[in-house]
């Protein structure tokens, strides 16, 4: 069984972004970049499935500028077997990404595709669902548990009301939630080994991708900022403020 894991290069989750003074975009120059945390969880899950003998191969794919090969190498160091980089300098929308992933899947014929539920930069939460639709595959989004058996995958999903378990026929698309697993750290020997693992590079244009998105960003602004209020000395003072000043209780 083969697992395909699409990963995205994003700003490190610990870094607070700044908006550019001309409001054209956020300023990512000299910021620390990393694998999107949800994608890291996807890689971990796939690697664990291979380690436990359920899967035989884990292929990671990333779409973006040349630099995202760093994140592919990280995923290889975490245990993935092979990487594919689809190079593009354009800022593609999720549908375009999903279409490119579809072309990869048509070639790879993976039995399971595990994506992150959400990129922490665009906060879109849509690529996995779109890919599933384009492939006519079932989807298990926001997964906190996966169980593979008899050509099916049982996915426990984190939903607003609690947890829901679905059974999907394979091939299927799964998107990860934070509690699915805790990703390992790459060891130095594995980082060295990852350098020799195969990494294929393809061009997005050759795969027929559009170079523009139908959704254009007109401007990016700072959100309304909150200013720190006052410190109170006691619970009595707090309750008094809430009653007489804020009038919320």
């Amino acid at each position, binding site marked *: 069984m083969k697992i395909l894991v699409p990963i995205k290069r994003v700003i490190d989750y610990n870094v607070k972004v700044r908006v550019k003074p001309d409001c054209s975009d956020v300023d990512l120059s000299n910021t620390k970049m990393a694998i999107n945390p949800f994608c890291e969880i996807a890689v971990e899950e796939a690697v664990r499935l291979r380690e436990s003998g359920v899967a035989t191969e884990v292929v990671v794919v990333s779409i973006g500028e040349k630099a995202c090969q760093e994140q592919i190498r990280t995923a290889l160091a975490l245990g993935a077997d092979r990487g594919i980089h689809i190079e593009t300098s354009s800022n593609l929308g999720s549908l375009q990404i999903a279409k490119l992933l579809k072309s990869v899947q048509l070639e790879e014929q993976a039995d399971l595709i595990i994506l992150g539920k959400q990129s922490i930069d665009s906060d879109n939460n849509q690529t996995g669902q779109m890919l599933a639709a384009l492939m006519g595959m079932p989807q298990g989004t*926001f997964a906190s548990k996966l169980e593979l058996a008899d050509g099916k995958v049982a996915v426990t999903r984190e939903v607003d009301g609690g947890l829901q378990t679905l059974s999907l026929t394979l091939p*299927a698309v799964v998107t990860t939630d934070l509690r699915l697993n805790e990703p390992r750290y790459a060891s130095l020997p594995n980082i060295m080994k990852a350098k020799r693992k195969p990494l294929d590079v393809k061009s997005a244009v050759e795969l027929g991708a559009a170079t523009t998105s139908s959704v254009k960003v007109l401007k990016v602004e700072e959100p309304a900022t909150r200013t720190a209020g006052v410190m109170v000395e006691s619970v009595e003072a*707090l309750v008094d403020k809430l009653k007489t000043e804020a009038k919320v209780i």
Partner: protein
Amino acid sequence: MTILIIAEHAQGELKPETNKVVTASLALGSEIHVLVAGYDCKQAAESAAAILGVTRVLIADKPAYQYQLAENVAALVAELAGGYEYVLAAATTSGKNFMPRVAALLDVEQISDIIAVEAADTFKRPVYAGNAIATVQSTDHKKVITVRTTAFDAAEVGESAPVEYLETDIDMGVSTFVAETLTVSERPELTAASIIISGGRGMQNGDNFAMLESVADKLGGAVGASRAAVDAGFVSNDMQVGQTGKIVAPDLYIAVGISGAIQHLAGMKDSKVIVAINKDEDAPIFQVADYGLVADLFDVIPVLESQL
């Protein structure tokens, strides 16, 4: 412009998120239809018909839609979408699940989590955990949109729009429902509560959340949590507030033993009044709090409860 809203409902009841999506839609057009897809969902359809601004309700009452399986619901919505310029749903775990699928079936991008309608094709949405607000314009012929419901007021009820039954029964047969564990609580739902008290890692264990529950009960509020508290197993996942959990904007948000990581702030910083109780005076949560109290939560929460 005709608009199709996919209703949010559970256990036969319409959720207030639907009323908020109606408010967002009023800025886009006046022909607003609501689709209630589910099983045994007649009551939800009747509630939807009563929302001011809704001109028609479509009900697809079939077992295939009972658990809102994305494959079946998306196929239904995509089939209906031909007659509409806009398809909207709330950015809940249900809307987030099937709407991108609808968008892909219609070959358009989805605009996620809008917080404002600037023009018929232009919307505002938060990105980077709410640390930036993007204004985006879509050239797609049909617009598939999810709505951040904390940004819109609930539309009032009072009318009665016609309800039309649909016979479309689509079961893609690739997914089946197995089980669900839903949290039952007497308290208001997080996303609907006007007062929320949330606990973080500082609570130390799940039993200690009983202290927050007592405060919530006195205030008629809900109890939330940080991701650290959920991860540590203190409380269940549906209580998580934040970038990747629930987005809330109550009148009063009390953060107890929560440091104030950007991912947590992303889910609650639009609350009207924020109170932070933390023993570390340098905790970042104090930078967004209207009222801060530097204290050991185990000393002050029982006092707070007794004073309400």
